[in-house]
């Protein structure tokens, strides 16, 4: 039985295993679709909308859409690239993202996406929200100024019993991802490092190691995000 399917992204033929999502199939075939909230190994949630594509004229998120034979997908088009740039700008103005002072600079996916999509100054007005920094855990800092609410930490950082260290609080534009105070106190170094590494931005920072790797030698300091695809 044939276990592969074929479809097209921007005219290019993609051969993919059945059951893969569009973004997985694209990346397997060397076609880059930008993602932010998506994380390998956990169910996608279509939260950031960065991976938006057009299938038969309809906007869909490629992290949540299963690849299907015969799909005609638009991705790297002026319309969709402009839209992705707008989403990045929107994320910048709705938080307080001050790259020069951030431990994650150079390793930050939001910053890297902004470079890749050539954001200069966001077209939207800055909102400068008043946000808190939670440093109550001995291991990590949870900085709400920088959180893009991608849910990666919520989905990947769990106790052995499956309880989540991180959870949503409130809703709408009051929404925040908070660290469970009790679990935060008992956090191990390994979990703290994993939480920092899985965070695409500088919202989760492991204490005392933020600048161990010098700026200038970090992941996106020399190559654009997506070049490994």
């Amino acid at each position, binding site marked *: 039985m044939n276990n592969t399917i074929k479809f097209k992204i921007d005219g290019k033929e993609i051969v993919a295993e059945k059951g893969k999502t569009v973004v997985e199939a694209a990346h397997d075939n060397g076609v880059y679709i930008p993602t932010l909230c998506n994380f390998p190994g956990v169910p996608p949630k279509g*939260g950031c909308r960065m991976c938006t594509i057009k299938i038969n004229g309809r906007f869909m998120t490629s992290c949540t859409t299963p690849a299907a034979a015969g799909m005609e997908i638009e991705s790297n088009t002026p319309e969709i690239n402009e839209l992705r740039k707008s989403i990045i700008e929107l994320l910048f103005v709705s938080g307080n993202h001050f790259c020069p002072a951030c431990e994650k600079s150079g390793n930050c996916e939001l910053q890297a996406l902004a470079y890749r999509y050539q954001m200069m100054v966001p077209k939207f007005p800055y909102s400068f929200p008043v946000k808190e920094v939670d440093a109550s855990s001995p291991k990590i800092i949870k900085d709400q100024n920088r959180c*893009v609410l991608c*849910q990666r930490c919520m989905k990947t950082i769990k106790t052995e019993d499956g*309880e989540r260290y991180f959870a949503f609080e409130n809703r709408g*534009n009051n929404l925040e991802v908070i660290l469970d105070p009790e679990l935060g106190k008992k956090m191990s170094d390994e979990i703290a490092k994993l939480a920092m590494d899985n965070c695409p931005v500088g919202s989760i920072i492991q204490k005392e190691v933020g600048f161990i790797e010098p700026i200038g030698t970090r992941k996106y300091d020399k190559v654009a995000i997506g070049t490994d695809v």
Partner: protein
Amino acid sequence: MKEKILEIISNYNKDKTRLMDILHDIQSIAGYVDAESIELLHKELGISASQVREVISFYHFYSSEPLGKVNIYLNDSVTAIMHGREAILETFEKECNVKEGSVSEDGQFGLFHTSCIGMNDQEPAAIINGKMFTRLTPYRVKEIVKDLKSGKDIKELIYEGDGGGRNALPGIHSMVCNNIRRRSALLTHDYTPFDVTKKVLANTSPEAIIDVVEASNIRGRGGAGFPTGMKWKFGRKAVGDHHVIICNADEGEPGTFKDRVILTEFPELVFEGMVIAGYAVGADIGLLYLRYEYKYLLNYLNGILADMRSKKLLGNGINKIEGFNFDIRIQLGAGAYICGEESALIESLEGKRGEPRDKPPFPVERGYLNYPTVVNNVETLALIPKIITKGSDWFLGLGNKASAGTKILSISGDCNYPGIYEVEWGTTIKDILDMSGSLDVQAIQVAGPSGALIGEKDFGRQISYTDLPTGGSMIVFGKERDILNDVVMNFLNFFIEESCGSCSTCRNMTSVLKERFTKILNGRGVKSDIDDLLNWSELLKVSRCGLGQTAANPITSSITNFRHLYENLIQKDVVFDTGFDLEESVKASCAAVGRQPILHNM
């Protein structure tokens, strides 16, 4: 207290998918969900305390902070404001000695705003300790507060008498009125409850039932308009250990209240519709998701279900049909507009935050607890027994070609006769305005804030799936209304308040639009601001669900149809203005240091 909380948790078998009920029960005995209860839920349900708080903080009517002994939730829909909400609020604040959004110092009264509570035809209205109070006046407010202070029970505070029809039944005992102004296919009393279940199902195959529904061309009445027969067919075909029928009674679109009236006067139609759907789809689980605002109907509706069970119209072997096992449970919501979206509703039914799911998969493939699930609107299900009884041709004879049957409209605002109107699809807006006694109309909001604001040039258009689709909300605005300040701003705030926040565009874009819109209202707008509003609104179309995708509609449809209102406000001969007000921005610091700034060139 600890024993009582543990008892509640064990009443639901420590099942975390029943968290909604558990929180309701805790709140009903403790007033709010305190830290100790959260800790117990953490231990007993195997989820972190933050995961419990995650759910509590999502829903408007749950609280992890102490509330008042008496809690007043005052509706802030646009119609409430048009009918004098401000005076009602002032009176409550004065009489209860409490500011909106807080609890009085003595802990006696909590006063909060809330999104549309489905009483637009009898505003201003408020929910006080779960009981509905409508047509409020400052006089009545004083009276109510005085009696509450004297220790009277909430049930004794209704002096208006019960509203008409079944609102007077002891199970409801409410002052809410039905205001049925026009009856057609659904609202006429030509129905013998459960006749279809008793006489038709035993000798008709599930496939044949679906055929009739499909032939009738009935489409979903909630707004999206998906063909009901097709949905049932998909549901029947989908493979799963269980199949589920959900009745969506989370009627939250501001301005709509028809499901409230159907559930009050015709619950048998709704429940029988669910039984028929269960038979057709092969479902064994039935769920009705009732919005919290309609809690006053809960006991009454549960009473009808109990009666159905005793008559073997629910349960195992319904009407002696072998293998037809189907029962219905009512799930009470807790205040979230987004839960009207079917996948968010399912998340809520599973005891989680009501965040929409990504589609595919659609609920018919994987819905409630991942079982194939058919979600239908109250009105859709209530039409089913009549379609089965009278046949698909009867139904096709009503309405127009694209849209078969009738639609129940909830009409409110500046009209002489607000209420429920059942009309055939194809009726024009002009006829709707005329029949409801709407004079000197400036605009009408068709299908609620997520629909369209239209003016006179469009009054010849028809309600139809191919012209003006609607879930039924119609709000009329007279000539004297300030469309931008009062209407569009109210709707914008509504979308900001009710966004779940889980996708980036809906969470952030509505606030950005509000900032720019406010700039125009403040007289600081320039022409490019109008263009920005239109262009930026496009970004919302990539949002995950219908709420996000339509959240800019108040802006875009008011610019499209009432552009002159915007143009009157923007500055002529000015091409750029930051909108920044230096004087206002330094006001607080000036006051603190007691100095006046010298502002140049302002």
